């Protein structure tokens, strides 16, 4: 039993819903009690979908449990098949139905339905949403294609050359309730098309059963979101011999690497190295003098594996930030995230307890947080600027405008989205500096307007919180009046860190009093 307050991921059947709702002509019969229908609102409210997810809930009640719940399942399967006439039917159960073991999949298989029926077994007490999405997509791909698997994989990735056509790839992984998938797909299609590469099938997002059947016709699979598509890509590789690309094209470097990988796999001449600089404004924006102040900004990163790894690379290699924390809630992605953290000299935080993440964030004293909507709230509490880079997300993270994360345009979007909150942090500092000017109007917090304004106090409150917390822990150390005065001149968002540094320095050198001189000594000590 595990105490959970807020959760990063839903149960695995919500992952299955994401696949069903992403696709066309796929319906999902979910053996579940009343109340599990809440999941519909994730799609209709967060994604603002104008259609209900294609899910029929058996909505069994306590009084059904004594009777024949199997009959109830069959009735709902039949009704769903008749009413929606899907091209494929997914049948599965949620956590409660798993306990009563009706085996709805087997029941549906035995009903002689005219469409293919794919049984989903998603262990609700050990697995989570992203795993459920990957497993559902995999079972669907496998279920629809297993009859056409050749005895020996005989795929020729360079067949397009003999056939005198453009190379063709599938984009696998984008789904509803993924982060910016809708826009990433457009961006990657555009990017590939610039290189003379056609996109065959995009799946699961907007794909139908016929599209899944066409998957083996591509020369190459592009795995855009390994959380959802890696197991399907591997299966297609093992059974059809179709290789897949593994670089996720988020950021300048990764987009370049992605193009190199795809070109190499397809047997094409490598792309121009200067393409990114020509097609994206991000590199110049990062080089321009205005961005100098970004150097060494301390960034704390937490999200799903894909976006966290991408963010770490962008921050450290393309924006000149210092990554002071990196982690993920996806245990499936723990290994690559650990490796990415190690390269930055950090230990990865693999954790799905948002309070532990918040504690790690406070400890790292970053100047910017890149995280999920959980970290946005934590950062707000700690008074640290934040940008959302990953699910779970809020309705405001599904913008109306085109805002991909992938490709050259994605790099532009990322520059704006991540640098903007930092500039606002700087503005806050300037306001602090000019507070005593007569022109200064108290309460002027222009950047907090969009957050409801009350955040301004949050900032100070929290810095106090950090301060008082550490006063308590510092015990015998005494801050002199001029030490305190000097500390107050430091921007609030790094004040906690400076205080801690000064205290540990004082302890280290055995000094009982912290004056402004001690502060400067500590500063020199830690920079050295």
């Amino acid at each position: 039993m595990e105490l959970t307050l807020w959760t990063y991921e839903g149960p695995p059947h919500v992952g299955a819903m994401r696949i069903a709702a992403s696709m066309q002509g796929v319906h999902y019969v979910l053996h579940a009690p009343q109340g599990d229908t809440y999941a519909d609102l994730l799609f209709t409210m967060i994604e603002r979908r104008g259609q209900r997810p294609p899910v029929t809930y058996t909505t069994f009640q306590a009084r059904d449990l004594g009777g024949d719940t199997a009959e109830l399942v069959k009735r709902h399967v039949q009704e769903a098949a008749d009413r929606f006439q899907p091209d494929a039917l997914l049948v599965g159960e949620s956590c409660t139905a798993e306990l009563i073991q009706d085996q709805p999949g087997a029941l549906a298989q035995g009903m002689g339905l005219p469409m293919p029926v794919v049984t989903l077994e998603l262990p609700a007490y050990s697995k989570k949403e992203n795993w459920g999405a990957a497993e559902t997509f995999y079972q669907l791909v496998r279920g629809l294609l297993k009859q056409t698997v050749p005895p020996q994989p005989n795929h020729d990735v360079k067949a397009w050359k003999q056939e005198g056509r453009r190379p063709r790839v599938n984009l696998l992984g984008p789904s509803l309730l993924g982060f910016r998938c809708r826009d990433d797909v457009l961006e990657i299609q555009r990017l590939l098309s610039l290189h003379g590469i056609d996109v065959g099938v995009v799946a699961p997002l907007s794909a139908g059963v016929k599209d899944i059947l066409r998957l083996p016709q591509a020369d190459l699979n592009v795995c855009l979101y390994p959380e959802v598509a890696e197991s399907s890509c591997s299966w297609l590789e093992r059974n059809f011999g179709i290789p897949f690309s593994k670089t996720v094209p988020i950021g300048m470097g990764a987009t370049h690497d992605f193009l190199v990988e795809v070109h190499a796999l397809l047997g094409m001449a490598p792309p121009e190295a200067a393409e990114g600089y020509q097609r994206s404004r991000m590199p110049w924006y990062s080089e321009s003098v205005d961005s100098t102040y970004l150097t060494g900004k301390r960034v704390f990163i937490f999200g799903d594996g894909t976006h966290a790894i991408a963010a770490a690379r962008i921050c450290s290699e393309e924006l000149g930030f210092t990554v002071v924390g990196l982690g993920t809630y996806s245990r499936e992605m723990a290994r690559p995230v650990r490796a990415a953290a190690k390269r930055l000299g950090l230990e990865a935080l693999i954790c799905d307890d948002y309070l532990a993440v918040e504690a790690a964030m406070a400890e790292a004293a970053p100047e910017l947080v890149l995280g999920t909507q959980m970290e946005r709230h934590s950062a707000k509490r700690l008074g640290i600027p934040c940008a959302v880079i990953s699910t779970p997300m809020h309705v405001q993270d599904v913008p109306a405008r085109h805002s991909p994360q992938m490709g050259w345009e994605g790099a532009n979007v990322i520059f704006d989205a991540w640098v903007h909150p930092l500039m606002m942090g700087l503005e806050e500092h300037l306001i602090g500096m000019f507070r005593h000017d007569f022109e200064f109007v108290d309460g002027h917090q222009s950047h907090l307007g969009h957050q409801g304004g009350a955040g301004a106090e949050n900032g100070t409150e929290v810095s106090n919180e950090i301060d008082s917390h550490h006063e308590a822990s510092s015990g015998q150390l005494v801050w002199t009046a001029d030490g305190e005065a000097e500390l107050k001149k430091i921007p609030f968002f790094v004040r906690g860190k400076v205080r801690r540094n000064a205290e540990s320095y004082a302890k280290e050198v055995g000094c009982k009093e912290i004056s402004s001189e001690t502060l400067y000594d500590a500063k020199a000590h830690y920079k050295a």
Partner: protein
Amino acid sequence: MVRTGSVDAGEMSANLLKESGPREVFCGLTSIVWLHRRMPDAFFLVVGSRTCAHLIQSAAGVMIFAEPRFGTAILSERDLAGLADAHDELDRVARELLKRRPEIRTLFLVGSCPSEVIKLDLARAAERLNEELQGRVRVVNYSGSGIETTFTQGEDGALAALVPLLPASDARQLLLVGTLADAVEDRLIHLFSKLGIETVRSLPPRQSSELPPVGPGTTVLLTQPFLTETARLLRDRGATVLKAPFPLGAEGSRRWMEAAAANFQCPEASVREVLDPLEARARIALAPHREVLAGKRIFLLPESQLELPLARFLHRECGMELVEVGVPYLNREQMVEELALLPDGTTVVEGQHVERQLDRVRAGRPDLVVCGMGLANPLEAEGITTKWSIELVFSPIHGIDQAGDLAELFSRPLHRRQLIHPALHPTPSDHPVHA
């Protein structure tokens, strides 16, 4: 659909039908979202699955800045396989939680679908924890599971769990039962005192540790129509539970207050003196909304149990036509006053087959549909204006003074459509708009 008869009360009779099938409603756990705000010294610990945790967080819509006062003890494979004793595990989680939150005075252990199916005895767990905590924290339990409860019924369970803990008292008092917004509660207490009812208490109280007493001198007014079990237990404790329409709208609220006044034998003239001007003012507040709503056709899908009182208000005070009124379940005894006030032949459907009901929505082309958040945007996308029912359990809508605000919740979506529809859906024209 099965016809289950009609209710005759006076000259009115509603056409009662029942259907079953796939439902689109929340389970009782959802009521934690407003209950925990009412009692800031209480914690709601759901014993359930990741689905339960995800449900409450999704229904809450936005995350609350602070650490929430609700959480889920998520059952794992180890608990189910018997590798870990679920009771030991629950004790450990509860201890961990209370150590972290020393300000908590009442811990609600909330049963869920999985905990009910594996028959985890939360009453026993509560008893054990109570013994261990020796009064420092009171532990109670109830079920909010979807296999037994619908949405607002969770509040009934939580309040019913508190009834045995209420101190006994013979003192004469009015007890308001059901969560009210603090401001509304203050206003009602003020109005009751003007009527001459001096002692007015509330269940749930604002602090879980300050439970109101109950006994033969207690007169109960239910503020919400979903508190069947709580009302039964209060009756068992000697209280008198009044029958009245629920306090939604000017008429309902007035009759609700009059029921209390009659029970306390307040002089009729002074009751009129207090309520007449309030009602007159409410009519003025209602007028602009009535202008928007009168003659419009409304379809209420089942969700909060507030559907019948709302339908009564929207018909009688706002002039709306009722296409269909859905209710998750129907307690005729508790709803008799409301049913009697509905127009003759109103279709009231108990239960749900969501697909067939949506077919009826499409066929009926109502001007406004009251529904859950899962259905609202899809219906809007079909051109059907909607109002989310969950807002009705979060907004201060009770009492005469709120009648205008309550009507506004329904007139706003219609007004909004009127404002923006022409520009967003221009009709083909030969002339440029700004020519």
